[in-house]
């Protein structure tokens, strides 16, 4: 048996947030922070390794809402402005640290250099579309790119609506095809949400594999020969990769994971909250709403509010240790499994892409170090390559209903805080199906009216809104968005029943929600062949 085989799969997704009607909109920062702290540094790191001719393969899923935002001209321009503002702040910070807090000067310069580099690469190298950079890495064999559901819907709660499930999968595949020029082989199940039978629709759309939560093997009604350490074949032939909870927890655990180490940078201490209002005001939100600026100078230190200054060199040393520890843990496990498995195990690790760089500042450095030190230790593979190279058929198994959410099922997305919305979302789907059936193949304004209704239904299905409501983070915004989408579909339904089209609403809705420009509402027609 060879070294341990590891599949790193990153899910790059953000909800569709776009409000150019405002000069700045708080929730748009989700995209800008992810671009600046995760996606661009990740691209930079992968290209560096590629230039050094290191062999590796990672897998990344790009959600259609993220693709829509990354290719949206208004948001692209706003991101340039965001970077320019952060460069201006960085220049002030370098001067301020020189004068007042020299212990932070190195990091102020480091952040400033990062923003300058981001701006240069974003404008000059990627021409404001970073997806081209990922596409090039896929073409060179360093990435496997995959898709996910159209608006990252948590699919088990829509099982009763196969037309909506189909729309989520079909549009996910279409979005990928349009963006990357070929159909995807893999499909990231949002929140690892799986219910038995979902694979039928995935196969219909040409998907070869998807991932499931760890426990879906142990809790399967079948005896899974290799537990959570091998992909299995669903009864219809689509492969399911169980996520290795143990290996993932080395990073993911918020109690013991690598990112919790005391020398790493503290995420929550930011000059946006720490410095005087008159100084920081031009770089936060109006009116005087303090936000993260990305300039953070403190180390985690421990469970105390008395933080010590962050020392980058120390953190980089720890990154090296944690990378080697990761290889040790994986190979130790691989070795222990040697006596029990007659086939090569695979350790499937799935993460949100934004964990690396944004939440865990050193995460991209760690990933780089894992790749650099993988030679002779660990084989980094993509799920598709593993399936292609694997010998013999996969065991046919029925994975169990599961998710990666708290409790392992649907409790996060069907919590007391968000259950009230399902009667409305389900009704919206039902009404959309009815409209598509009663008014098929409309063109002109009616066609646009119905297309917009379909867009609203899909946006209402996003897993983000119930998750945000559950996690009590940006509750007001999530509720407003969710309710807004449902109100919109209700308006279209009422008007269409009166043979009317509200042109003012239509124009404004089309301008507001620009996702899925080629959407055909007939996708919701239950009688569509």
């Amino acid at each position, binding site marked *: 048996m060879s070294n341990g085989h590891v599949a790193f799969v990153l899910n790059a997704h953000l909800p569709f947030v776009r409000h150019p009607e405002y000069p700045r909109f708080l929730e748009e920062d989700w995209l800008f922070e992810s671009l600046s702290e995760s996606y661009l540094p990740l691209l930079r790191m992968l290209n560096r390794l590629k230039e050094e001719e290191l062999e590796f393969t990672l897998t990344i899923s790009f959600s259609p809402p993220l693709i829509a935002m990354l290719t949206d001209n208004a948001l692209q321009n706003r991101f340039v402005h965001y970077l320019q503002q952060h460069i201006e702040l960085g220049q002030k910070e370098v001067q301020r640290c020189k004068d007042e807090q020299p212990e932070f000067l190195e990091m102020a310069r480091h952040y400033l250099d990062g923003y300058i580099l981001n701006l240069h690469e974003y404008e000059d190298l990627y021409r404001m579309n970073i997806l081209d950079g990922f596409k090039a890495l896929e073409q060179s064999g360093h990435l496997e790119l995959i898709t996910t559901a159209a608006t990252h819907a948590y699919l088990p709660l829509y099982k009763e609506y196969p037309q909506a499930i189909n729309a989520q999968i079909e549009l996910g595949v279409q979005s990928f095809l349009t963006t990357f020029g070929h159909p995807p082989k893999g499909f990231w199940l949002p929140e690892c949400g799986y219910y038995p039978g979902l694979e039928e629709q995935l196969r219909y759309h040409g998907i070869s594999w998807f991932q499931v939560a760890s426990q879906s093997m*142990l*809790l399967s009604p079948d005896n899974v020969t290799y537990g959570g350490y091998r992909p299995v074949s669903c009864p219809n032939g689509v492969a399911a990769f169980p996520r290795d909870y143990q290996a993932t927890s080395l990073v993911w655990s918020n109690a013991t994971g690598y990112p919790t180490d005391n020398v790493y940078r503290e995420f929550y201490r930011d000059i946006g909250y720490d410095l005087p209002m008159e100084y920081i005001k031009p770089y936060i939100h109006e009116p005087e709403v303090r936000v993260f600026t990305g300039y953070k100078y403190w180390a985690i230190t421990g469970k105390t509010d008395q933080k010590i200054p962050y020392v980058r060199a120390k953190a980089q040393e720890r990154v090296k240790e944690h990378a080697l520890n990761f290889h040790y843990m994986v190979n130790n496990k691989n070795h222990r499994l040697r006596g029990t498995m007659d086939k090569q195990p695979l350790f499937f690790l799935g993460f949100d892409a934004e964990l690396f760089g944004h939440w865990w500042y050193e995460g991209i450095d760690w990933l780089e170090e894992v790749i650099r030190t993988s030679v002779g230790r660990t084989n980094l593979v993509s799920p598709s390559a593993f399936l292609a190279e694997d010998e013999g058929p996969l065991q046919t198994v029925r994975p169990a209903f599961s998710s990666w959410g708290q409790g392992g099922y649907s409790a996060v997305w069907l919590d007391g805080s968000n259950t009230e919305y399902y009667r409305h979302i389900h009704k919206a789907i039902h009404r959309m199906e009815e409209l598509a059936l009663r008014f098929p193949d409309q063109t002109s304004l009616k066609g646009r009216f119905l297309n917009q209704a379909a867009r609203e239904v899909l946006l209402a299905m996003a897993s983000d809104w119930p998750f945000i409501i559950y996690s009590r983070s940006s509750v007001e915004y999530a509720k407003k968005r969710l309710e807004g989408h449902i109100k919109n579909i209700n308006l279209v339904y009422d008007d269409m029943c009166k043979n009317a089209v509200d042109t003012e609403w239509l124009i404004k809705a089309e301008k507001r929600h620009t996702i899925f420009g080629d959407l055909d509402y007939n996708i919701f027609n239950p009688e569509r062949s």
Partner: protein
Amino acid sequence: MILINIDSLSTNELQHIAQMEGLADWNALDREQLISALEDWFEEMDEGALPETNGQVSYARYTNSLTNHRGKAVHFNDLPRTNELPPSYYDSTIHLLLRDPQWAYAYWSLPETIQGNKTSFDDEDHSNESYFLRLYQNNLATGEETSSDIAVEVKDQEWNIHLTAMGSSYAVELCRLYSDGSEEVIARSASVETYLPYWADRIEELAMDNDLFLLHFSSLVTKTGEVAENLVLKDLVSTVSKGVLG
């Protein structure tokens, strides 16, 4: 087709729609003429007239930049003419969603004459009626079906339902009980299924075999011994460890 709020569109927007619809001389018409021409156009379309497109149908969407600047407001506004969400759709339906293998969430609605406390058109007196949920459990292995009733109030619209046995299919009916004891099924949900894990009744075998235990459990336990949070898993772990863990 009726065009609602067409007066509220800018001249640019009206011109764009007219251009997309293929109206002749769209750029020579003033605002009032554009509105009139578009209203006539869509009225004709209702009568079966199809636009002349010379075989080319444009699906390009109207995406002029937004002009709706709202200053310092933190939250965006709803689009025009949208209404608040109704408390219910008053349509005699019931839905069952699986939260986990032990709990499901049911929501339902009744006609407005009952649930909305509106005057009944049929002049029937609903005051002596009561309502209940009938939960059907079908054992997937044996096919045996059992049922149990849960009393609900007319004002209720949702219920968390405990599912007593894995390996079963469940469906729920919303029922009305009349004062004379007769019952009426108002709506029935689609069914949800729970499957019994293979290891559920073989857990001792798993506990006694190191290799099996390694294969099936090690991917679910962190390096510090924390088991993945999952209520079914927790029951299995508790059994395996004879109550020491889990």
